């Protein structure tokens, strides 16, 4: 839904003058990308905005109906619930993924033996499509024919996708399992860019591994953490495929986030107006969060690489 540009690093010299001649040429080069962006992002977005003020069943004619759709969506108790589920997913996936991917990233950036081999193993989930992952997990977690009953392991034989809390936990787990490799990759790259000299200096000063991690690694990759967090948080707004195949938003509506709510309203209940209103809300929430994270990143500090 929300196309996300990589965050602009705000430097003090962004708006420095003196290069206005070159700037014109650069603007021209941005045109094709801009055209594509307008056709595939801005126009549909405006279309959705217009549709949210209409009544349409997806087949018949579109009728303007003012605020009817908005009233319907905003008074529906399903909306706060879907928002709540969305935010829970966002918070938990961030809390689970960030520390783990950071640690894996640190590990992969080192020079241990078998590192390449292990790295390749870690990245396997990244190669699979969400639908394939969801179908596989669904089969593994089946309460009658899954892994638990197959191996006669009582603790694995739970109603994984049938109880509200467990299903939510499973979604968190599978999402994390799928995306941790990606974020590890980002962190690995960032950590490798930290100059060795900083660590050497710290070692001379007697800083241990843990001290080095918190005093050097984390501050040095601050912007990477923001990039990765932005991707996680804004990405989690639009989780759809995995949850749709895994639980269809169920049991009941325990894992029905905004994206699923939008799909179900639009394509299963044939209420395109209210579905468009939900889509607009989704876009606004996404933009707001992205902006917030950018602000946060900008105000933290001015320079990134100390000593480099």
């Amino acid at each position: 839904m929300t196309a996300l540009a990589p965050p602009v690093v705000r430097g003090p010299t962004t708006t420095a003058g003196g290069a206005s001649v070159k700037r014109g040429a650069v603007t021209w080069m941005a045109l094709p990308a801009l055209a594509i962006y307008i056709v595939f992002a801005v126009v549909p977005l405006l279309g959705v905005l217009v549709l949210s003020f209409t009544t349409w069943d997806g087949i018949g004619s579109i009728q303007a109906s003012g605020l009817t759709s908005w009233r319907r969506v905003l008074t529906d108790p399903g909306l706060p619930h879907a928002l709540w589920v969305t935010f829970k997913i966002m918070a938990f996936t961030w809390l689970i993924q960030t520390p783990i991917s950071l640690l894996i990233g640190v590990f992969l950036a080192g020079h241990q033996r078998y590192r390449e081999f292990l790295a390749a193993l870690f990245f396997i989930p990244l190669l699979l499509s969400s639908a394939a992952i969801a179908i596989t997990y669904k089969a593994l977690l089946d309460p009658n024919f899954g892994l638990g009953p197959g191996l006669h392991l009582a603790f694995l034989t739970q109603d994984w996708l049938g109880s509200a809390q467990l299903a939510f936990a499973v979604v968190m787990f599978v999402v994390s399992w799928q995306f941790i490799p990606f974020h590890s990759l980002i962190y690995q790259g960032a950590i490798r860019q930290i100059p060795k000299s900083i660590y050497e200096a710290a070692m001379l000063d007697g800083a241990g591994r843990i001290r080095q991690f918190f005093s050097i690694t984390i501050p040095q990759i601050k912007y990477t953490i923001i990039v990765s967090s932005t991707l996680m948080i804004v990405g989690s707004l639009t989780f759809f495929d995995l949850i749709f195949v895994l639980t269809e938003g169920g049991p009941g509506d325990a894992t029905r986030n905004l994206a699923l709510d939008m799909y179900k309203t639009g394509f299963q209940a044939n209420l395109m107006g209210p579905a468009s209103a939900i889509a607009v809300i989704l876009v606004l929430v996404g933009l707001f969060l992205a902006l917030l994270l950018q602000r946060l990143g900008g105000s933290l500090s001015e320079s990134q690489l100390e000593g480099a």
Partner: protein
Amino acid sequence: MDPKTTSRRSFLSLALGAPVAGAALAACGGSGPSQTGAGGGSASGSAGGGGGGQATYWFLTGQPQQAIREDTVKRFNAANPSGTIAFTEFQNDAYKTKIKTALGAGQGPTIIWGWGGGGLREYVKANQVEDLTSWFAQNPQQKDRRFPAAFGAATVDGKIYALPAETVTPIVFYYNKKVFDKVGVSEPPKSWADIMTLVDKFNSANVAPFSLGGQSRWTNMMWLEFILDRIGGPQVFQNVFEAKQDAWSDPAVEQTLTKVQDLVKANGFVKGFSSITADSNADQAVFYTGRAAMMVHGAWTYGNMKTAGGDLVTGGHLGYMNFPPVDPSTDKGDPSDTVGNPGQYYSISSKATDAQKQIAQKFFGTTVLDDTENKKWVASGSVPLVKGVDSQFPTGVDGDFLKFIYDTSANAKGFAQSWDQALSPTQAETLLDNIAKLFQLSVTPQQWIDNMNKVIGQ
């Protein structure tokens, strides 16, 4: 969307009055043996011949139905090289979304495969499908040879917009005789009290009483359809269908919902039922492997249970009957009533060219449900919605089952179409959503009724 103004077609009453009825394939259909990812769809066109143009036809995957549908088209194409039909096949849930989007965009096929009822009504409202009333008037034998009850869901405001086709399949109460013997139960339940007693008995013997594919939601709905019809009679849902205000507030509805929740609380359904899907046939597997003793499911599951279920069917261990009365002394509904889908429905797109429409009509008139197709349906363990087809039934376990289905359909005083097919998609989605919550015990019967009353007529 608001259909409050338009008078609702009372196809149920049509169905109710008819002495012979039929049912049909998948309520919502999961008869596919394999579950594909959302959005799947594989094109497999037949050779598109010659000068007379080509019609298009979209239908569902899932054996054995898929092979029969393909065969019928291929035989038509072989006999009519000048005007052929190209077909595209879709997985059930993917099709539901795809067909809607395609029709909305004017990209639909010539022949639209459907379930009739509320969905067909939407197509009619949007002028997407041809009125076939005059075609039936010109071809009266096409109308006469089909079960009259099959026409209810094809009719909108007195006009016929779809050709009833394929098979009749009521929902059946299955039980596993081997499991019954093992646990020491001699007879299937005859009332709701019996069901609750059996639930305790099976649970204490460590066998799940009922299998259920709860994630698919319409599977849970079949329970409500039966219990409500038994307790309150067909008029209760008819009132909902006719969009009468607060129709769900009938006391029979609350009794029904309470009974279902009692059953859930008593562990009447297999553990983890909310995460089992019917599309993957996992609910049938729970039943035919003996993990659950009983199952309420469509007649279309018979074929799969026969092929996948070891000697359950072939050894004569599969018991089946109509859903029992709830309480014979107070029930308002007739115990012969059944629910299901009275047929599958083929419509002709109003956006097709005249040449395409003619090919489609020729297809309807010459090849659909001809003797060859009927034989194939019977061989696959289904009853095509054609009168007198019982004379073709084989002997043995298959013949007995087919006869049971034919008689259940024929003798039913009322044959109600599945709720989610009868209602508009908007109401159906709210219904399925609330049914899932009901089985999760996350709404009370009263909340359920309030939620449903709000969307009546939408």
